[in-house]
């Protein structure tokens, strides 16, 4: 009995002193292990059960890029690499275009909201958050109905339009927080020293908020690249994006080559994330 009591006391002391670090370890395991498993399994050569390690292989990577492999026909799911590459191409076109458009619109709005006083500011402030916060599915189907009613053919253009409606808000948030963190005395000082509005913007405001603009652009690129729900509703027949394409495969079953695609996507997003964080960390 006293041993049990001692053990309980030990446990209690452990929790008291080491609870936080212990919890943090579990937390990081929870968020990292699933992704590491995917990457690990993408090199597993076992065709029948991907959970049982059967040796190292690059075959899954080769197969998604359309190279010849020793894999059986029915182990491979992709009908053609073209589909995948086409989806990837669409994704990149869409993300690049939406990034440019939403960065422009969001930055303009941030400049107006942070640096000017006007009457409907409170209204704009509510309006800018709305597209971001309403559930994706609501925005997705309302865009679908809208395009169908107005008569816009569903294509990559409709996807671009759809993405920009909420990405402007993300850019706005990043750029406006950068602007708000920048002392507006700097602009006054430039004015005072003889720089007019345009000169001041070119020489002072723009260089100083540039990291914010880049951060906003990267964020909107990532979100656009990854958007599934809205794209799912407004994508046309031949305008599938990468997430929608993979979602389609996943709905039909789990196949090992998704591991390889997923691993590539994880690596890619890590690079983009690292870039984004580098830009964000740049101090004024």
């Amino acid at each position, binding site marked *: 009995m006293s041993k049990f009591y001692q053990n309980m006391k030990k446990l209690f002391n452990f929790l008291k002193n080491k609870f936080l670090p212990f919890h943090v370890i579990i937390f990081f395991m929870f968020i990292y292990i699933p992704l590491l498993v995917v990457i690990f399994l993408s090199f597993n050569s076992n065709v029948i059960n991907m959970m049982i390690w059967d040796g190292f292989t690059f075959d899954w990577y080769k197969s998604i890029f359309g190279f010849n492999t020793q894999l059986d026909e029915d182990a491979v799911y992709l009908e053609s690499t073209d589909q995948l590459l086409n989806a990837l191409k669409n994704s990149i076109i869409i993300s690049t275009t939406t990034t440019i458009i939403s960065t422009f619109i969001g930055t303009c709005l941030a400049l107006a909201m942070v640096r000017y006083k006007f009457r409907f500011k409170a209204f704009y402030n509510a309006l800018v958050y709305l597209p971001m916060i309403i559930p994706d599915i609501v925005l997705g189907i309302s865009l679908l109905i809208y395009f169908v009613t107005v008569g816009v053919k569903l294509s990559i253009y409709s996807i671009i339009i759809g993405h920009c409606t909420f990405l402007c808000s993300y850019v706005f948030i990043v750029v406006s927080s950068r602007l708000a963190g920048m002392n507006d005395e700097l602009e006054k*000082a430039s004015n005072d*020293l003889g720089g007019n509005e345009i000169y001041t913007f070119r020489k002072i405001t723009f260089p100083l908020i540039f990291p914010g603009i880049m951060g906003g652009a990267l964020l909107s690129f990532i979100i656009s690249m990854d958007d599934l729900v809205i794209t799912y509703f407004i994508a046309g027949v031949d305008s599938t994006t990468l997430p929608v394409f993979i979602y389609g495969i996943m709905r039909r079953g789990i196949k090992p080559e998704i591991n390889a695609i997923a691993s590539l996507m994880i690596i890619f997003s890590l690079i983009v994330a690292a870039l984004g964080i580098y830009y964000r960390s740049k101090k004024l």
Partner: protein
Amino acid sequence: MPRTLISIDNACKTYDTPEGGKVNALKDINLNINYNEFVTLLGPSGCGKTTLLKTISGFESLDSGDIKIEGKSIINTPSYKRPVNTVFQNYALFPHMSVKKNITYGLDINKSLDKAEKDKKFNYVLNLINLEGFENRMPHQLSGGQQQRVALARAIINEPKILLLDEPLSALDKKLRSNMQIELKNIQNQSGISFIFVTHDQEEALSMSDRIIVMENGSVSQEGKPEEIYYQPKNKFTADFIGETNLINGLVEEENGLIKFKNENFEFHLTKDFQQYINKKVTFSIRPEQFFTNDVPKESNPYISNFNVEVIQRLFFGPNIKIVCKIKNQIFHCLLKISDQETIKLFEKNKKISIYFDVTKIKLFE
């Protein structure tokens, strides 16, 4: 006869407060500032001094009134076209530009200057602010005092008619501040630019200015030379705000042809000069250093009066000693010069002493 450089006529400005009220930041201000003058706007925070500065620089517009520089109205001129430059409170150095780029910012906008001329001007101001060798540093690599000087150089290189300084020394520590005060004064003398200096620090204002404008609640409370402001305050606000003073309420009465100041704690005789205050409630003001302890024979100065007081606290400052003392319920602060250790013993706590003052030097305010 000094020539007027800038004149401010009937300037008015109100602000809306976030709570929906209105604040009169400037109430009908009239001011003239001359060429080559060092003028200080002095007042507590919220008195309108910074607003006045901003209307001159063009960051704020006036509701009514006019501002003229050399006779020409500038109120419709955007700030980038005004012959005015500002040194900001937190310097507002452009963080992404080197010291040189910061200083030559104004010159770079004006395309008419050639490189040699620019360099000449740059080297001149760099020498003026004593920062040779720092031209390629970035602002964050400079100390507070150095940043301050860069901000100053950046403004004066454009040879403005007027330099506006918005509490430029408030972020510096005490020692640096007094050095910068001397430097600022020198630079003003050398450059011949009129300085309008905003501060809430009265010592700074007294030591540097040719003229002080004391502001209170959006109006000019008093203007004049530092010594006038200090010794001839026109009202209670100025007397209280500038330097330390004893302010005591009471009544002026006439008794047997003699004029007396009186309250429940004490009374003393006044000279004929104070006739106008008879039968009025007044506040009398006397500065701590205007008290002395050695008796002066009545024959040499008939206007000396004295209080018999009890010491309740003494604070030793080195050359001076401050004594807090009281008559009945009235507390006085006196600042006395001392030169040896023995004298301090005279003012021990609870000792009864006599303190003297010259009645002609006190001020009465209604």
